[in-house]
């Protein structure tokens, strides 16, 4: 009857992994309480570096530039700004610089 136990164990593990996904998201989403204060940056990295750090691993530059449209295309840029706010780990100031970089020359 080991096969029945194996099936039950695997099912339990599958459920546990799903729960772990939720626990992980909850723990990762908490503001760090013990983290040492971040030093005030003496210079803000430019949009290129920020794009490389926060976006380039998953998103192609050309694809993102197309999504951003030209400088005056405010509707698309508002959409992209919302996307950046809801997605990825950059701060609002960093998102603004990424947006400038994507709509720039």
């Amino acid at each position: 009857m080991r096969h029945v136990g194996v099936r039950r164990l695997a099912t339990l593990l599958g459920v546990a992994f799903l729960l772990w996904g939720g626990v992980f998201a909850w723990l990762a989403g908490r503001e760090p309480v013990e983290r040492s204060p971040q030093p005030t940056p003496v210079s803000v990295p430019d949009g290129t570096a920020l794009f490389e750090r926060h976006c380039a691993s998953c998103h192609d530059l050309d694809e993102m530039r197309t999504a951003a449209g030209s400088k005056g295309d405010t509707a698309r840029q508002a959409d992209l700004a919302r996307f950046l706010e809801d997605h990825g780990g950059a701060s609002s100031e960093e998102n603004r610089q990424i947006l400038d970089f994507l709509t720039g020359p």
Partner: protein
Amino acid sequence: MVIRGVLWFALYLAVVMAPGVVALVVDPFDTPRPALVEMSVAFGFVAFAVIAAQFALVSRFQASSRPFGTDALVQFHQYIGGIGLGLAIAHPLLLTAAGLPWSAWNPLAGGLTVQSGAIALWALVLLVATTVWRRKLQLSYEAWQRLHLALAALTGLALVAHALAVNGYSRAAPVRVAVLIYAAAFSAVTLHYRLVRPFRLGLRPWEVVTNVDASGSTRLLRVRPVGHPGLRFEPGQFAWLMTGPTPLRSQQHPLSIASSAQPAADGSLEFSVKALGDWSARVVPTLAAGTRVWVDGAFGAFTSERKANPGFVMIAGGIGIAPMRSMLLTMRDRGDRRHVVLFVAVHDESRLIFGREVEQFRASLNLDLVVTFEAPSPDWSGERGQITTEMLRRHLPTRFRQYHYFVCGPPAMMDAVESALLGLGVPAAAIDSERFNLV
């Protein structure tokens, strides 16, 4: 054995959870990210570790297979592989819900991060699909083995590239180190399994002594070690029999050892091989005396060894008689006079394996034999049809709840017999079954 099993399971849990836990501890992000992204990352880490650990589950480590049985480990490998695939699909699916473009699913486009992830995912999908539908796809066992290993290696490599290329949690050095440790550990396991183990087996050759017809489309192969003492095994265990020019380029199949566990003078072993596929029907009959073969074993927890029950009930369907023969021969050689009820179920008289020999066991063992044919000849006066609750009730001894049960045969038969035994009140822990339908 139970404690060992718990310890091995705890180790497995630690292995599959560790990358995610390390990522959480070293969290390199200054600001929280969307929950969907974090959940996706959690599934990604678990899928990575589950898939990496898959290599170890089927690498024939005797220490880890002993407490569970190799067939149970293979079943776990199959179930957990499906769960790993589910998590691997959930990872990009959640990211897509959070804004990742659908183009990221294309393995032929995008940067290293996206492309490696997509390659890993589709290789895994292909790996699971070719396993589940191997027979429908008409893949031979040997072709499937090669394909399975190639796809597993591709999945593993692409996963490691993906985990390192994503500049998320893996930008933290401890996470990168963890990923590299996993890659190194499971590469080592695979190299050991595919190269070191076959090389060592090559130094311990065996040769065929006899290869005779055991009736029922079954060959009885007797092999003996050449230049080494052979192997020790417990009655009911199995070994991989390898045929071909070298262990590296061999066909290998798991077979119950059918001989007594009391060591023979020449260290020889017997395997019974029923003609069920290409290898067993075409290669095995051609193995003449003197042919070089290799034996990798012994494995499995399907054994009467160390069982202190007052008796055993053995239920065999078709070639499932092989491990029972080993247990009965061992009892005979050790003078073990405990009561045994042996049920043998086959389609008709022509498919009965070891029929005459099992009859003769009655003289030296405390054995009750029940043979049932689904389609017997008209003059057959014994049991007919499949093994049912009523048939079991007719032949089980009064103290049947104190006996230990061994069931081996076609999966449908084992399912039916196990249900019948449970219905009669036999404790689940007293029922051992051996399931050899690996894929």
